[in-house]
């Protein structure tokens, strides 16, 4: 048995590589077709893409791989493009908080520094500022699960304060609106994005706050370095 598996291993390896070559070829073909579609859209030949109606896109989220997020010029370019096409509210997320740590760079690099107005900032709280007439919110990993734990502690302290109340003798009973209010009270609430764009090697939300992802459309855009204006 051991000898059979030793003989079979190289053949299995060859077939395995062959399968992955087929996957790569199919993906390359899909990428080429997608590039041609982008070219046709950006040429303005298709009337349905000439005037994009973004009324239903009230909030847009962008998840960026932290390595890509270090490329500040690319992130800034993305924000400019989003503003140009009429997006009003953007939530920028990267798992390690690279963007949050360099928020000052985005504010300074705006064409008119007076256009960037910090709307809300405190350490460990949401960072929101106004840029090119578009509200930009910056969050990272701790704004997800750790925020939920903070919300739970907020609810707990309220529950303990009201412990003499007859209702509380049955044990804590919370509803989803209670959780939303608690997240707001601890400074970790925010709108649910209608659309989430993922810039990175894989279609994965990388810990974007779960409470805000319920019915969000999630689209994988590929690496940030290869982004196009035709989104």
């Amino acid at each position: 048995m051991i000898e059979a598996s030793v003989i079979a291993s190289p053949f299995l390896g060859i077939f395995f590589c062959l399968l992955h070559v087929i996957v790569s070829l199919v993906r390359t073909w899909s990428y080429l077709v997608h590039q041609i579609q982008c070219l046709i859209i950006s040429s303005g030949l298709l009337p349905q893409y000439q005037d994009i109606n973004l009324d239903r896109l009230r909030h847009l989220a962008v998840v960026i791989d932290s390595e890509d997020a270090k490329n500040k010029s690319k992130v800034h370019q993305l924000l400019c493009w989003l503003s140009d096409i009429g997006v009003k509210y953007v939530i920028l997320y990267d798992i390690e908080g690279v963007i949050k740590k360099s928020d000052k760079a985005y504010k300074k690099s705006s064409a008119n520094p007076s256009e960037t107005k910090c709307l809300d900032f405190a350490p460990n709280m949401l960072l929101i500022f106004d840029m090119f007439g578009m509200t930009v919110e910056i969050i990272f990993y701790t704004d997800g699960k750790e925020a939920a734990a903070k919300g739970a502690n907020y609810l707990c302290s309220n529950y303990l304060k009201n412990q003499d109340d007859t209702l509380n003798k049955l044990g804590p009973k919370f509803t989803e609106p209670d959780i939303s209010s608690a997240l707001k009270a601890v400074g970790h609430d925010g709108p649910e994005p209608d659309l989430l764009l993922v810039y990175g090697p894989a279609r994965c939300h990388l810990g974007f706050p779960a409470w805000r992802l319920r019915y969000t459309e999630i689209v994988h855009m590929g690496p940030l370095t290869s982004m196009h204006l035709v989104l």
Partner: protein
Amino acid sequence: MSTISERFSILQSHLEKNCKSKISKISGYVGFIMRKLLFSVLSVGPIPAHVAIIMDGNRRFAKRHSLLQDSIDPASGHRLGFRSLISTIQYSFEMGVKCVTVYAFSIDNFKRSPQEVQLLMDLMREKIEEMSAEDGVFQALHVKINFWGNLELLTEPTRLSAKRAMDTTVHNKGPELSVCVAYTSTNEITHAIEASVSELKGKDQVQVSDLERNLYSAGCVEPDIIIRTSGETRLSNFLLWQSDFTHLQNPKPLWPEFSLRHLVWAVLEYQRVYAYLKNKKEGIEKNK
């Protein structure tokens, strides 16, 4: 937990017992051997430990194939979807997947017409009993069946069937099948917060680990892949907490059309991004 070889032997004997004609027996056996070879090739790379599925497209499939117009059974799309589910679960376990989770019924689905909800409840009860039958393939594979969700919202016969299935299979040491019924992720998180707060003593604080311990999915590894069929891009309130490093896939086929080749493709796509996702996960765990 049974090894992959043991699972194949069990499936082989189950096949021999249940195939009626010689031709179907031979074709079943050939298919079985071909799958075994294919999965041996796939196993050169990482096999996902946990696959989660949003089974979208049953009603659209029935409409597309005009099944609803002529059929006496308005649940025909869902019945075909169930056949896809059984074969997908079987292939997953043959491949070596340890956990399969399926989104069977969302809390939001209660908003559908009362007739459709009742139909789905009856269908669920029927299928739960079929899955947990003593002579069924799931029992032969020692599958442990879990039901995640607010089961109090189900009709009593369905809730009792679910409880019976869980009690019957609780000691099984084989792969796990988790069925999300009357479930949404936000409801699960709310329930976890309630349970964590009620456990607190003195001046302790709720930690993330407390919330995770009180989720319906506690004790189960996080999903490696979430597949939503019919090309839809939303997660629709499914496993939002558990899917930080999960590869999200949305193949175009409707759920009744989902077959072995789509599952194999899903695993191949996962193998391409495995190293990246593993690296991200380890990075966050190191920083905790």
